[in-house]
């Protein structure tokens, strides 16, 4: 196992995340906040709560999962497809890295990023609805 290569890919992807913090983290949080405002607060206030759970709180897990899944797919796809598009994937292909090791690096980074985004959305949701 070339664990160092996996780690290198992971770190590289995470540094891309830090570099593009606005697109990758701030943007999804702002969009979900809008959802909370529109659906949770504005429409939600007209909908009765069921078994003590308000409509605003009810949509929180759904919105988190929505972003968790789209972001993890986007990130993993982008991380692999963009180098293929520019041609810089040659480096990974010519390195002593197996497909599995590369996949773990890219997918692991994508999973970490989307988990961070999910957690951040969860924290922001606390400002909009109180369970």
């Amino acid at each position, binding site marked *: 196992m*070339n*664990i160092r290569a996996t780690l290198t890919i992971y770190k590289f992807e995470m540094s891309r995340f830090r*570099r593009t913090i606005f697109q990758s983290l701030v943007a999804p949080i702002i969009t979900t906040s809008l959802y909370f405002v529109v659906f949770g607060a504005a429409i939600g206030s007209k909908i009765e709560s069921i078994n003590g759970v308000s409509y605003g709180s009810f949509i929180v897990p759904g919105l988190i999962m929505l972003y968790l899944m789209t972001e993890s797919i986007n990130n993993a796809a982008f991380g692999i497809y963009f*180098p293929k598009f520019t*041609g810089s994937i040659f*480096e990974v292909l*010519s390195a*002593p890295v197996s497909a599995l090791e590369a996949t773990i690096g890219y997918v692991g980074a994508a999973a970490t990023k989307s988990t961070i985004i999910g957690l951040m959305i969860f924290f922001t949701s606390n400002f909009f609805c109180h369970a």
Partner: protein
Amino acid sequence: MNNLISVSNLSKSFGSENALSNVSLDIKRGEIFALLGPNGAGKTTLISCICGLTTQTAGNIRINNYDTISNFRETRKLIGLVPQELPFDSFESVYNTCQFSRGLFGMTPNDVYIKEVLKSLSLLEKKDLQIFGLSGGMKRRLLIAKALSHEPKILFLDEPTAGVDVALRKDLWELISNLKKKGVTIILTTHYIEEAEQLADRVGIINSGKLVLVKDKADLMQEFNKKSTIITLRKKMQRLSKELKDSNISLIESGNKIKYISANGESNNLQSILNYLSKEKIDYSEINTVNNSLEDIFLELIEKNEH
């Protein structure tokens, strides 16, 4: 065991098109091997097969006695590759991208070594710049730095000096010679025959996917050691007279010049041409003799191959 890389009966086809057909080639340890050939000959494809970017249709490649497919970890860690194109993740910094290359090959980060490599390619001042801020020639040098960042034993250079200025080309040649001194085996492709003539120990010529010839550069130059003598006439000659009829003698530039090709120091014919000219009182203004360069040899071989 002197051969570091041995390619046997390698074929690669893309659909119905044969990019490589039945290529066999041995690269010796520590040599500089130049691969020449016209556009689309299959140079890049051959390199891609050896480095694992594409999989061959038939045949096998062994590096240091390991198979490039079943033992790819052993073979690839020996290789540094500088591709023909300039592909980059443009937002990464120069220094980080080199450490990334190093890490991919399973090596621990080495600040001193990376800086040394960047310095040898005069990129040290640019180390914190993002890649899109580099000029084209700097990008090419960065590709070389990346390829060297894991201390490879074999370096593939696919047209390393395309788009590089003259001074820098000389620097690169020096860098390549220095690497050779350190024991790195180098395989380069180029369209500048001058480059092969300067650098290579052996030359391979590839055309339409077939390896036409592999030879020591010195032998090649020796074998094709020919001189062309061009006699510029003061007056046009309509056609060669009977006395001058010989396969080595021809009229060029619509009869204004006589061209004579002599092989291996033979010069009897030149004497007879000159005798003939003075006998017939034909004036000439200039006699010019040039040695055949590798370039002429190359063109000649490609032409022969096509017939």
